[in-house]
């Protein structure tokens, strides 16, 4: 797999990010439905941490507690992170190329990217079920980060759990072939 033509989009609204051409992890997972209560809470936490002006101040007590726990874990690295940074890259494999797009919660390009999650249970179970490692691997591959970290708040035990991701290409190679176009076009 090769990665090229990475472009960063600073200060890009989520709505505008959705309009960028490219295949994201969410595109591949194909979620299309009404967000659940848990997903809405996750969005609120994301907004509160990264785009506070978008936070609607619902579930404030829980949202702020979760945000504090996440920020405490990320600690000093937070101030070096670019928040909600969008990017696109050309992922190529076996003669096929796919325009990839991603949006990381926090990133120091070339060093580290992080993704926040609010989970109803254990991080390992959620990763097994939803393949979050592949999501973070996509961020890492596009931005040249040797490591990514999932920082997840487990609502069951009310604690932050973390998982360090060393990017894997396997999932993306498969999807380049599936969603990409012949490179020579």
């Amino acid at each position, binding site marked *: 797999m090769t990665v090229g033509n990475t472009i960063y989009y600073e200060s890009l609204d989520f709505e505008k990010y959705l309009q960028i051409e490219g295949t994201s992890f969410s595109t591949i997972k194909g979620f299309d439905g009404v967000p659940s209560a848990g997903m809405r809470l996750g969005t609120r936490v994301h907004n509160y941490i990264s785009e506070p002006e978008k936070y609607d101040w619902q579930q404030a007590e829980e949202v702020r507690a979760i945000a504090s726990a996440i920020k405490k*874990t990320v*600690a*000093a690295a937070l101030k070096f992170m670019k928040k909600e940074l969008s990017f696109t890259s050309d992922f190529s494999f076996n003669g096929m190329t796919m325009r990839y797009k991603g949006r990381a919660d926090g990133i*120091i390009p070339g060093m*580290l990217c992080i993704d926040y999650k609010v989970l109803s249970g254990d991080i390992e179970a959620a990763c097994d079920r939803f393949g979050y490692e592949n999501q973070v691997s996509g961020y890492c591959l596009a931005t040249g980060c040797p490591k990514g970290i999932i*920082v997840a708040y487990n609502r069951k035990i009310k604690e932050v759990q*973390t998982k360090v991701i060393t990017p894997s290409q396997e999932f993306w190679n498969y999807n380049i072939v599936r969603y990409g176009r012949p490179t020579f076009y």
Partner: protein
Amino acid sequence: MNEVMQLTTIQTDLPERQALAWLALAKEKNEVTAEISRRELACQQLLLPEPATYQEIDTMLASYRKALSDLSDYRKEFTNKITGALIAPQMEPEKRLNEKTNPRYIELSNRSLTLRKDEADRAAKVNALNKERADFKTFIQNEHFRIAAEYRAELRKSITAMYAAWLNDNVQEPAVDTLADLLAKLEVPKIGKFTPALLSREEMIEIFNAIPKPDYAGILAEAQGSVQEVFANYTADLKNKEAAIAHQQQQQALAVQAEQEQLAQQQAVTTLIATAETVTIETPKIKKTVEIILVESEGWAKAVMAAFIVNLPNLSKYIRVKSWAKLSIGQMADALSKYATETGEVFAGLEMKEVEK
């Protein structure tokens, strides 16, 4: 006899004596029900006449109360038999099995608590060791970053200092070649001290050796290589020493500042990764609650009521009563205990105990 025959025919698995007893009970129930209905009507009849005086009214009401009381006594004669012979014996097993009084349950519960505490202690020790391992690894990595940054800054500072000194002394032909040797004599800063609480010396050495060290020789060679670049305009700078020195110092300050920012970033990222990688063993759950110690005294009851009233705005989620009129002091104490468990609140005049489950 026919009724008994019919019953025993239907319930063939019932012993005859038991079938007869149930039949007798059914018959008695019917008789009692009929009698109660008759007495109820009689009671109501007592209030029907239109009395003329309050004395007549009071006599009627007294008769009514007496009849009602007799009705109640009559009913209890029958229902107490059922309670005593049927309901109470059926509830006995629940009483014997109650988790708060069953000795075997209590013994097992205590044993579970002891085992969970032991397991939690073991897990805490492992977690503490894992954390110290991660802390030490982070410490070494960050020290390497710091030392490399300081070494670079020191080399740069020395070059700038010599540059300024030679300019100030009007040295026309500075011995630039000797500067490389001077730089080589500069010592690499020492690594800081880490005080272990759990790690063995052998393991610390192993961790230390596993972490790549900065390329100090490369840093020195880079600094030595930069000397020619710094001194490239020396002859021209002699004509304008102060400005040249100021410029060089400014360049050095900017470089140091950039390096410090890079250092802070590297250290923050290293620390975050190490924290995220630290393996934490899940500890068994030990539920800790706080309970108000019950004291059978008027003073205790007053203290509970006072604390309840003071904290009432915060207690609503702990109070589960169908009727506020029946809220007991025991229930108030329970609500306060739950509140104290959650918040750590203490109440004047009430002693608390911590309970582990």
